[in-house]
């Protein structure tokens, strides 16, 4: 499992000494102790088991990366777990696909609200529309990635 995680960009998990600096800095753990980066890495390196915690709960704030004394990069492990779970058929939050669909539609990840549209006009801001050629290129990249 470790080599599969590394293929997906995970850092050097075997350097982890289970000190818990990641968990004690983790904002998600501070509101819900179920999410525990130290245990996520522990279940992989000590028990060779895919952790049961949901990697999509991570806020990607990267404080675990900054503070890890062993330079393990716990965030990279969590991101790799997202990819592996996806490949194993575990659906990510539907919001992920909504964002991707929106990029395919307009090139931007968020739709323009009516309120913002009116405000843009009244402030004399430039048109948002992406040219067709560019949008085609963006769609192609995303569809080739399977989206």
């Amino acid at each position, binding site marked *: 499992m470790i080599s599969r995680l590394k293929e997906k960009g995970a850092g050097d998990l075997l350097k982890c000494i289970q000190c818990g600096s990641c968990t004690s800095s983790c904002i998600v753990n501070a509101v819900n102790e179920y999410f525990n980066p130290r245990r996520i890495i522990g279940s992989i390196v000590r028990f060779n088991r895919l952790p049961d915690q949901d990697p*999509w709960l991570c806020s990607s704030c990267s404080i675990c990366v900054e503070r890890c004394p062993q330079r393990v990069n716990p965030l990279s492990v969590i991101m790799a777990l997202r990819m592996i779970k996806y490949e194993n058929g575990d659906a990510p939050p539907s919001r992920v696909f909504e964002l991707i669909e929106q990029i395919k539609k307009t090139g931007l990840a968020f739709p323009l609200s009516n309120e913002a549209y009116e405000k843009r006009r009244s402030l004399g*801001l430039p048109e948002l529309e992406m040219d067709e050629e560019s949008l085609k290129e963006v769609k192609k990249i995303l569809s080739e990635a399977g989206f």
Partner: protein
Amino acid sequence: MTLYLGCLIRTLYPEVEKAVYEVLGRIGVVFEEPKGASCCAPLGLFSLSKNAWLRLNERNMRLFQSTVLTVCDDCFASLSDAFKILSEKNNVRVPEVKPFGKFMLEKLEEKGLRFSFKGLRCAVQHSCHLLRPARNVDNAENPMVVKNVLEKLGYIPVSYVSELDCCGGLVFEEKMRNAIARRKAEALEKSGADCVVTTCSHCMRQLKSVSRLPVLHLAQLSALSMGANPEEIGISEILLRRMVNP
């Protein structure tokens, strides 16, 4: 200079976009905005395909002819991470990516600018992706860039407990996202500040949804100090009344 505003500011916060144009115009920065640039697809949000992320930003990079100024720190992180990988992979020169806070500090120092005292107390929401992991923009454990800019602009940066905490804006699960936001909003409210200031549009959106304090982008306060019309850049009457020299 190439201006990269990002998705959220253009679709949700036109007042911030207006403020950015005001600032660039007033300090005399010539810039271009490539029409064909797409979302930078930050990995924290998309995560499913590193390759698609890299290709989208390789495409963006081809459109950028000069240093890229980002107005959202998530864009800053996504673009600079992607460009670094592309530079190593293809052994090519890549454009520098500069976050708005750092850009302002450099410009104010270069031109020796200081603005009249406004007496507005500002609590900074430091965006995670500007600081971490060590991006050589600011001190990750004691960030000062945005605070120094605020001081030069005539505002009072205040320190508070949990200053480095993430706002939770990129958490997908709603209950968890809201719990983290409320925790952060409480800390901000206890700081005694008149408003919250950030340089990340995700922090802006997240905190605006829960905070009793007004949440502003640094660009808005920059434009205000430089004399822009407060109404156009989204500065409310209530906030103006709290200032010494509005």
